């Protein structure tokens, strides 16, 4: 079976985020890494293809400046190839435009039995792209899957809900968004990292994919104001000298909650 995984390359979340003062978009001009949320989808895809006994895992990603370092991480985990959508015209694209581009990239790869994405990215977290891709492609979808199995040409998933989870069954091809923790992602081996360097990544533009308009022109939204949120007043921070618990008790007493 063939699986396509949508992966996002993002600025390292450990570093403080910032906005470009001119465009007010998130700054993504430094080195990008594979969004950790996507490593679960890559692992899931690799395991499903292994289990099926044939086929391959392909990646699609959209990033500025022909950035491929995050893609290489996923290739090092075992994916076979990738498409990178990179085009200066894409700056400011909204989630819907992103979904149209990713859906076009899925078609460029000839489709797949399953398309996997994370439930949301760790930087922009709009959280709608997987379901939008499904709608653009006219496919069924299962979002927020925390468990996934494929048998007899259909998938069975446990879909997380506000109250617990639902058992959901769905014919293939389909789009699935997976939660973090659905599987334990492998670390790329040294051999995998070396092999990844030679794996094919095709770089395409919006025009190559036939999607227009893109960028700010297609976004139908405009950032009009950016302000710093009101900061909380500084509190008291103390080292525990063995009596730290008593400070908490006094604090709670003062609030009359105990």
């Amino acid at each position, binding site marked *: 079976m063939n699986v396509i995984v949508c992966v996002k390359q993002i600025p390292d979340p450990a570093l403080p985020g910032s*906005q470009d003062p001119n465009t*007010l978009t998130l700054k993504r001009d430094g080195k990008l890494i594979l969004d950790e949320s996507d490593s679960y989808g890559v692992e899931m895809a690799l395991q499903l293809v292994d289990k099926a006994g044939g086929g391959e895992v392909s990646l699609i990603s959209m990033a500025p400046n022909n950035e491929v370092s995050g893609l290489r991480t996923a290739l090092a985990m075992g994916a076979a190839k990738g498409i990178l959508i990179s085009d200066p015209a894409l700056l400011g694209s*909204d*989630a*819907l435009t992103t979904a149209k581009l990713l859906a076009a990239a899925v078609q460029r790869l000839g489709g797949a039995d399953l398309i996997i994405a994370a*439930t949301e990215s*760790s930087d922009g*977290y*709009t*959280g*709608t792209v*997987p*379901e*939008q891709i*499904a*709608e653009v492609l*006219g496919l*069924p*979808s*299962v*979002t*927020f899957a*925390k468990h996934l199995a494929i048998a007899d040409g259909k998938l069975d998933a446990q879909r997380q*809900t*506000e*109250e*617990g*989870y*639902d*058992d*959901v*069954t*769905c014919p293939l091809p389909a789009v699935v968004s997976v*939660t*973090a*923790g659905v599987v334990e992602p492998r670390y790329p081996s040294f051999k995998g990292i070396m092999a990844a360097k030679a794996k094919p990544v095709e770089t395409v533009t919006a025009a190559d994919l036939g999607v227009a308009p893109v960028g700010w022109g297609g*976004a139908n*939204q*405009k*950032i*009009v*104001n*950016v*302000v*710093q*949120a009101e900061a*909380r007043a500084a*509190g*008291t*921070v*103390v*080292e*525990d000298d063995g009596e*730290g618990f008593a*400070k*908490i*008790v006094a604090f*709670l007493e003062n*609030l009359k*909650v105990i």
Partner: protein
Amino acid sequence: MNIWVFAQAANGAPTSGTLELLTKARSLGEVTAFFGGDATEISAALGDHGAAKVYATGDLAGNLPGIAVASAMKAVIDGGDSPDLIMFPQTTEGRDVIARLSVKLDRTVLTNNTAITVEGDTVSCTTPVFGGATLVTTAFTGPPPHLAAFRPKSFTAEPSGGAPAEITAAPLPDLGASGGATITAVHVEERSGPKLDEAAIVVSGGRGLGEAAKYEMIEQLAKLLKGAAGASRAIVDAGWVPYSYQVGQTGKVVKPNVYIAAGISGATQHMVGMKGSKNIIAINKDKEAPIFGIADLGIIGDVHKVLPKLIEALQAR
């Protein structure tokens, strides 16, 4: 302004997120609720929060709400009743419906919002970014209907004393291949005590607890304080506790009177979900932990030492 609110219900009553959005919507214009299911049980509560009318699809017959409700909305819009704005709760179902509908209508979405303003025909929404440190306001510039999703507890629900919402049928159209997924069983993860997003006191544990078994201290402390136990994403991902315990960007948003964060460093993902708490107490070994930046009382110390003593002191009272 003609506004729709995607309504959700649990145990025969509208969710708090639904009532919050209806309350806000009625201050902005005429309000219609849109419900995926039979609205008989909830029409009174919807009306009492500002909805004059509710479109109801009837039983979803095992279809996932995302594709089903979006298709029903599209059919009503194509039929001639097109709103200026549709507001969605930022929930799993709300996200699915807004996403499917955005493609069907070719409209952009604004999600994770905590505020909305309407000036003339211009609708703008505000979203906290960088863990809530910065607020970004974005205006819709395309044609209506505008599609926006709001985080829970962004607004306060208040009854309006309105009459029950008039129920209008919005039957499900044929969903075609996109509607292939079917729900075969529903599992509710029962938990005792107050609900996490309604409790006056929330005690949450994180990776600093070291191992799953130590989460019992969090449950014990929450019980002693008659509060609810929560968790960081890290220990939910690790499988220590179910997702329904998660506080944060991808979990529950809580605004209790007292929030106690034990062994939680304060990743952006977590802070977004609890920053609105009235009083925050943090216990963490690392004095550089970002959680101390928003804590009213911070104890730099080992949760394995502080929590047992705290539990003992509270038991002795």
